[in-house]
């Protein structure tokens, strides 16, 4: 049986043996792969925003990402952490791209660095770096900027297809002079218009149910408008407009097993259910649910922000509660609050609830026995 020449057998010396606890195998996944997957899922929307808002969109995304990575590197340098190790997991890059997705294309160039400091320093590194932050860094930055610099953060410009026709968003905010400018083909930078949600806020709500002669929101939620929103042809943040691109991103994330598909579905479903109900009862208070689905940051928030692993609950049940809460708050803020958009506030608020959700939606261990019975089992 020992047909092998015994002298030629190479035997281990044991010099390089490593002591470690089991398991000695690993699935091969890593933080970098996860973050890379998220970036991959964002690519369709990045491309869409470049198409809708022009090359400046690409620049803003790149610029914001660089700002965030630089902020991370600077902090790690100052805090005497391993700079390369902290940057190379790509989490700062993902935060940067997500933050850029929440900015309008015309955003002044001093805003992204401020946002990066808010996101990376204030919302992430002071808590001890990746994994320890209770709030989504990109959303903290967005909300912080929205409160501190409302003008810069709501400087919307019309998207590619909007230049020709007189849409309600333009009628409200366009001056005759600006229209002339567009017609003459002059550059559009600095020209502002409203987002459809902003227009919705400006329309006075009519709670009188007998009011049926003319739908309050006809101009906003007609089929023509909805189909326009569906391709993302509207004013808005860089990353929130193009529904098909975002949904493609959703499928990428689900296929790569990076998110729990229930979160976006429940989130969006709750918003549509609530707005749909309100629309059916008081058509003068809310446009139809499709309008809510395709406008504002609902898709972006539901697919990329609410599913952030660090700041969402751990168990499936907890995630469902979390998504449901996000949906309810989003609808309430959109319909009755001062801000036209409620997604980021809703997610941020639910982030704060995550520890409680985790505590109350825990799993029951296999073979768990409630305390009273346990005593008997031991005896």
């Amino acid at each position, binding site marked *: 049986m020992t047909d092998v020449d015994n002298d030629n057998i190479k035997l281990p010396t044991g010099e*390089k043996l*490593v*002591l*470690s606890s089991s398991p000695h195998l690993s699935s091969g996944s890593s933080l970098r792969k996860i973050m890379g997957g998220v970036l991959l899922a964002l690519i369709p929307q990045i491309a869409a925003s470049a198409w809708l808002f022009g090359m400046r969109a690409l620049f803003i995304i790149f610029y914001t990402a660089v700002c965030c990575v630089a902020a991370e590197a600077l902090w790690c340098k100052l805090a005497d952490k391993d700079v390369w190790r902290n940057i190379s997991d790509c989490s700062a890059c993902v935060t940067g791209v997500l933050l850029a997705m929440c900015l309008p294309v015309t955003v002044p160039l001093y805003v992204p660095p401020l946002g990066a400091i808010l996101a990376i320093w204030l919302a992430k590194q002071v808590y001890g770096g990746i994994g320890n932050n209770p709030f989504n860094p990109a959303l903290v930055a967005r909300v912080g900027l929205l409160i501190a610099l409302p003008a810069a953060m709501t400087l919307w410009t019309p998207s590619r297809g909007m230049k020709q026709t007189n849409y309600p968003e333009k009628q409200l905010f366009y001056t005759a002079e600006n229209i002339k400018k567009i017609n003459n083909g002059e550059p559009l930078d600095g020209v502002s218009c409203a987002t459809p949600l902003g227009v919705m806020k400006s329309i006075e709500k009519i709670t009188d149910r007998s009011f049926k002669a003319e739908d309050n929101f006809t101009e906003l939620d007609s089929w023509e408008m909805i189909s326009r929103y569906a391709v993302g042809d509207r004013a808005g943040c860089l990353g929130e407009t193009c529904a098909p691109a975002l949904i493609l991103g959703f499928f990428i994330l689900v296929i790569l097993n990076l998110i729990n598909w229930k979160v976006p579905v429940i989130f969006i479903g709750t918003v549509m259910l609530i707005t749909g109900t309100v629309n059916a009862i008081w058509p003068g208070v809310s446009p139809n649910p499709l309008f809510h689905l395709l406008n504002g940051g609902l898709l972006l928030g539901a697919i990329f922000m609410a599913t952030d692993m660090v700041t969402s609950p751990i168990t499936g049940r907890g995630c469902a509660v979390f998504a449901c809460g996000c949906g309810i708050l989003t609808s309430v803020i959109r319909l009755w609050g001062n801000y036209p958009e409620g997604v980021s506030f809703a997610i941020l608020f639910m982030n704060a609830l995550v520890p409680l959700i985790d505590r109350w939606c825990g799993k029951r261990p296999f073979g768990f026995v409630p305390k009273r019975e346990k005593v008997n089992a031991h005896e």
Partner: protein
Amino acid sequence: MTFYTALVIMGLLGLTLGAIVGVFVKLFKVEQDNRVELALELLPGANCGGCGRAGCADFARALAAGEVTPGNCPVSSVEQRAAIAMALGIDAGPIEMQQAVVCCRADIGAEEMNYNGVQDCNAANLVAGGPTTCRYGCLGLGSCARVCPFGAIEIVGRVAVVHPELCTGCKQCAKVCPRNVIKMVPANANIHIYCNSPEKAAIKRSLCAAGCIGCRKCEKLLPGKIKFDGMLAQIDYDSPDAITQEDIEKCNCPVHGIMSEKERYAVAKNAASGGKRA
């Protein structure tokens, strides 16, 4: 008129509320032992847990209840213990002060083993008996340093070293150490033997160049000052005649295992800065 009305209203309201509070005080009366407060005030207040209780407040309660003596608080000074005993009118208990010593010089004597895992001594010790060649030596992952409420332990290179001037003798490090390499010694002693392995000399020598080889030279030269526990030399701290620097020179330990705290720190620093052994 306004003045008088205000006076009446204030007065009435005050009286009513005062009466209600008074009734409640009678209804929900709680007996309190003010000796607890007194003891708490006199305790060091470091909440180190060295006494084995959940903080100084708990210890104060136990003091008042007569479960412990002031000497059970390892951190308090001799004066503090006496003061507490006097204030509470109880016996002071043992009052001699202690300090911790890490009895190992693996940093200059032993090879390092490959280890991948939690940087905590107790956790590492569970993996195949711990990542050191010697089973009795310091693991150097700093569990003692983290648990020390006074910041008295420093990890120099691969081994923990106690700063005697900061150590209060609370024993927390000795309790947490999985290797029992931290010994409690009288606070006034400053010369120690830095080895903890009771193993046979041959095994010890194959593992660590700085381990006590049990040649018994020191025992012969310094009778009464050094005693032997199996294969391991130990300083007799109870000896009335304390070991001195001259004694160290006199016995000229072949592995230089007997040294003062100061020298030990210098050696460790030197080994750490001079690069690790290959």
